[in-house]
């Protein structure tokens, strides 16, 4: 389906819609500016209706089992959005700034093409909302596998505030339709890409020269353990985080690094962690989750054997989860689903090791004694991490936090200097 100017249209009309898009977009851009307040009021009202359960049936139809919008709902309130604007753009986000000979005026970048991610329901809409807040026209390429949630959400948003209609277009467009994608990219002032390196490289080849590239690539996160404040509670929180996120998010813990060089300490840590992980895994609903963990773990083990990388590792399997003590020091993807890697990484080697993954580092869940927290936080920051949290909060959303070390809204705007 296609969502164009407030209407849902069949895919068969895609070419026609794209052909008329330039004229439509130019017309909108010549008109009055879309005020952030219009967007905030619409989103806030819609968020209240969502929280009130008005759309529960609709959501049940589109959301995969076990997935809720609980994490996204708080983002849809006036307070959160206003706080986000203030955090990213300052107290007067769109106000003119006078200089001795000029005035700096903040304007939307213009037209954004969003290549939206498929790994979290709601994110395609969220990226479009960021574009709307900054007054841009948003063209959205929906991810493969979006079962209609995004289209339904956009439709509700436009029903709530019809003035948003000309700023929103969404296409259920397979990535192989390069011609149509290029046509959309040709209209864009900014190309916002979320996803894998492959997706980002593919998007770069689409963007015409002069189109600004805004890339939210995939990241890797880990926990760093160097002593404890409250061992039982910290290991239990870390285990819960690993199981609850399935290690599928950029902020999910893939590897637990231990601040030691002693293999025996590594083994002792794995033995300590296993019961916590097993307990967290036993709380997963349904039979399927445990099976996924075991299949994923087994598949990854066979891959490591074939690649000749399984030598020297120690496997600690348990019900629906496992801990794998590995002799190397690299940050890498775990087998996921509750199969976590443990590696030794003494503090002195932390920076040099992590620098090899520069550009991919995101969250470090730091477990340490209170007295070493400040020094370790500084070290992790210097190594290139963009979030440093406690173990329990590795995937939590914090008000005012950056996105992979940047302020997205700022990137969706441009400054015009006008001589007085």
């Amino acid at each position, binding site marked *: 389906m296609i969502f164009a100017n407030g209407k849902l249209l069949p895919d068969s009309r895609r070419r026609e819609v794209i052909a008329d898009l330039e004229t439509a977009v130019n017309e909108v851009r010549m008109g009055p500016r879309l005020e952030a307040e219009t967007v905030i009021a619409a989103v806030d009202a819609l968020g209240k209706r969502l929280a009130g359960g008005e759309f529960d049936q609709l959501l049940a139809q589109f959301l*995969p*089992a076990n997935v809720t919008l609980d994490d996204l709902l708080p983002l849809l309130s006036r307070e959160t959005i206003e706080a986000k604007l203030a955090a990213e753009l300052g107290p007067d986000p769109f106000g003119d700034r006078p200089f001795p000979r000029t005035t700096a005026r903040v304007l939307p970048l213009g037209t954004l093409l969003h290549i939206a*991610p*498929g*790994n979290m329901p709601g994110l395609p809409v969220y990226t479009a909302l960021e574009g709307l807040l900054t007054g841009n026209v948003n063209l959205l390429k929906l991810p*493969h*596998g979006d079962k209609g949630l995004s289209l339904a959400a956009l439709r509700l948003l436009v029903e709530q505030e019809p003035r948003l209609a000309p700023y929103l277009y969404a296409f259920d467009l397979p990535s192989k339709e390069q011609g149509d994608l290029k046509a959309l990219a040709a209209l864009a002032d900014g190309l916002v890409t979320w*996803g*894998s*390196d*492959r*997706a980002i490289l593919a998007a770069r080849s689409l963007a015409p020269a002069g189109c600004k590239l805004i890339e939210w*690539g*995939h*990241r*890797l*996160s880990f926990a760093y353990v160097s002593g404890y404040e409250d061992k039982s509670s910290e290991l239990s929180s870390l285990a819960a985080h690993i199981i609850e996120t*399935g*290690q*599928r*998010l*950029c902020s*999910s813990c*893939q590897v637990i690094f231990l601040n030691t060089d002693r293999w025996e300490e590594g083994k002792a840590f794995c033995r300590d962690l296993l019961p916590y992980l097993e307990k967290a895994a036993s709380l997963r609903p349904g*039979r*399927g989750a*445990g*099976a*996924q*963990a*075991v*299949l*994923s773990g*087994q*598949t990854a083990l*066979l*891959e490591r*054997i*074939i690649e*000749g990388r*399984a030598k020297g590792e120690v496997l600690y*399997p348990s*019900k*629906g989860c496992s801990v794998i003590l590995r002799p190397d020091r690299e940050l*890498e*993807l775990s087998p*996921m689903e509750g199969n976590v890697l443990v590696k030794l990484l003494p503090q002195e080697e932390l920076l040099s090791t992590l620098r090899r*993954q520069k550009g*991919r580092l995101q969250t470090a869940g730091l477990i340490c004694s209170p007295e070493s927290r400040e020094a370790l936080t500084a070290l992790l920051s210097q190594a290139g991490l963009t979030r440093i949290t406690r173990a329990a909060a590795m995937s939590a959303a914090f008000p005012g936090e950056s996105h992979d070390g940047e302020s997205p809204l700022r990137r969706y705007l441009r400054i015009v200097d006008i001589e007085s």
Partner: protein
Amino acid sequence: MLSRQRLFWRPKTYDLLGSDKAFVRACRDNCAYHIKHCPGYAAICRHLGFSPDRLQTIEDLSAIPVIPTLFFKRKALFSMPQWRMAMKVTSSGTSGKYSRIGFDWGCILAEAPMVVNLGFRHHLVSPKPAHCVILGYKPHKSNHTGVTRTMFGLTHFSPPLSRTYALNLVDGAYVPDLDAVAEALRKLERSSFPTRVIGFPSYLWFGLQRMEELGLRITLPKGSRIILAGGWKQHADQEVDKKTLYALVKSVLGIPEGNINELFGAVEHPVFYNTCEKHHFHIPIYGRVIIRDPDTLESLPTGQVGLVNLISPLMTATPTLSVMTDDLGYLTPGDKCGCGIQSPYLTILGRVGMRDIQTCAAGAAELLGKGDAF
């Protein structure tokens, strides 16, 4: 690999006990062959401390290293050079990733008696020509999926008079046209030859619903059959109860429940499982099924629900001797069925739902030299 042919050319297709010895022998030879010719498989057996000599009785089968089908989606393993293979086939890739599996000529030679024997046993073979309506993909040189080849192969159980496909290639992409199928079926009602509707159960369900919407009810000629293969795939969330589907078949196409055959198999385990008259998948002599604990992979006693592990010494081009599906299911003793077949039957409850979405962490690993990321 004579032991394999000896197993597959045995006449009694459901005599599990009588074939146990031959089955174990064929598995032992198959395992030894893969260890000799596939370095990856040899490394797996070595790492897990398994050697084929351990296979002495049917109970020992559970010790064979189990390879999840998920693994074949990420890595291709072959035990012979590609020029020696009869063909390479891919799974349907419902989740966007597919297995690449090689078939050797010996496998094709062994499959022939299996398919013919089971075809006779389940009344699929008929000398009377039939029109075929395929609710699946029209074969094309760009389509290497096993299910497309299987469905085409199934049209040969009786001399095919015509073939109408529900999914045809239009501008390089498969497009479903259920209305054209409904129209073809309406015309075939008046034919003096029976019709065979072969296809995905989901397409049959959608097609029959469409015909109901159009107010189309027909009675296909006597001897017409429905042959279902390939499972519900991406339409799993719309899977309907078998009884509901059979009732709709009877009311819309006029085909009685007794003329509906269901098939089960996988590219990684191409054993020809057929439903009996009570619609149960009994295990034929060519395969064995172990149900494993979804949390630990330990084998479970008959009747308990777990992951379905399929074992067959059929293939030598790819080491698929013991593969773990992501299906949950259970076994029931054959005598509980009542159809007369004594071998246990397998009930599939559905996939464990491997979440197939691309994850952000997985994507980051792609450029880290992990190769086939998922």
